[in-house]
């Protein structure tokens, strides 16, 4: 970047230009792995024209409602997270639903961490990710939010969340016969 008139260093000018961008993302009913692929671009800064692989120009991403993420298929029961303490017999395997019960932010955090490129910048980039299990954000973070990422898919609405009137007024194609048994 060019040196400003104030005589500041180029690095400082650039960091000022890209500083304080908090991007909000609502993870409700979103696939954590597709979400991670989207968030990754904002953490690395590749959404900006000044991007360079060695340039520290990523945004902060604030994710809310991580408790309500939606795993595809049978992933909650079949996906296993491995951990080893380093001691003999220290291996442990945790199912995704168990991990999500222990810490509702960890599934998403690990998904993003695994999708970031494996280099020395990875720890710094993941530090810019702020995940909250519900929609309560500290004011200090909320004040710095200046953008948002659209949800990747619409949040489905369950039948019991519609009001009785809406269900009753929904257009019907035909009526079941009187003697027909619906199980």
């Amino acid at each position, binding site marked *: 970047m060019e040196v400003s008139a104030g005589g500041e260093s180029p690095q400082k000018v650039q960091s000022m230009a890209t500083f304080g961008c908090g991007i909000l993302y*609502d993870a409700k009913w979103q696939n954590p792995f597709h979400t991670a692929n989207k968030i990754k671009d904002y953490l690395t800064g590749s959404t900006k024209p000044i991007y360079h692989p060695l340039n520290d120009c990523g945004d902060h991403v604030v994710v809310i409602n991580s408790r309500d993420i939606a795993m595809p298929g049978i992933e909650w029961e079949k996906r296993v997270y491995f951990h080893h303490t380093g001691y003999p017999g220290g291996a442990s395997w945790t199912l995704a639903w168990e991990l999500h019960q222990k810490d509702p932010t960890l599934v998403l955090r690990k998904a993003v961490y695994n999708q970031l490129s494996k280099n020395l910048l990875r720890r710094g980039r993941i530090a810019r990710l702020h995940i909250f299990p519900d929609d309560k954000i500290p004011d200090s973070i909320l004040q710095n939010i200046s953008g948002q990422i659209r949800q990747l898919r619409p949040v489905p609405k369950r039948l019991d969340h519609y009001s009785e009137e809406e269900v009753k007024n929904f257009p019907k194609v035909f009526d079941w016969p009187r003697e027909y048994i619906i199980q």
Partner: protein
Amino acid sequence: MVITSPTLFARARGGDRFWKRRRILSLSAHYFGRKKNCYSIAIKYVNRALRYSTIARRQKKLDLRALWKARITGGSEELGTSYNSMKYTLNDIGIGLDHKILQNMAIWEPRTFRGLALLTKAKETEKGLNSLDGPSVSGVVTRGML
């Protein structure tokens, strides 16, 4: 007095062992340890360095091209178009700007770049591409909701 060193250095292709070695050792002058001064050790590392530099001449072009593509993608997507749209549309119109110039504009001349992006979108609408109304804006968090 005639200074022959530069001439001999340039001409050394074989025959004169001293000047052949000078050529190699001048390339290894900045190495560390015996790689710097011992010919038989230096020649191995100089050969390897020359091999790397041969590959790197090609690799540098590929790396830069990938970087420019990432930058143009970043710049065009925040203006609501895409890398491919801009590339093909600008080519169709006959605007001969290459990747290097485009990414430079995205950084240093954002208004020019925005003009090109708007031109891309207008041209695509004219062609009938992307002219249908997009998806509804559900899933957007607004101020009052939090």
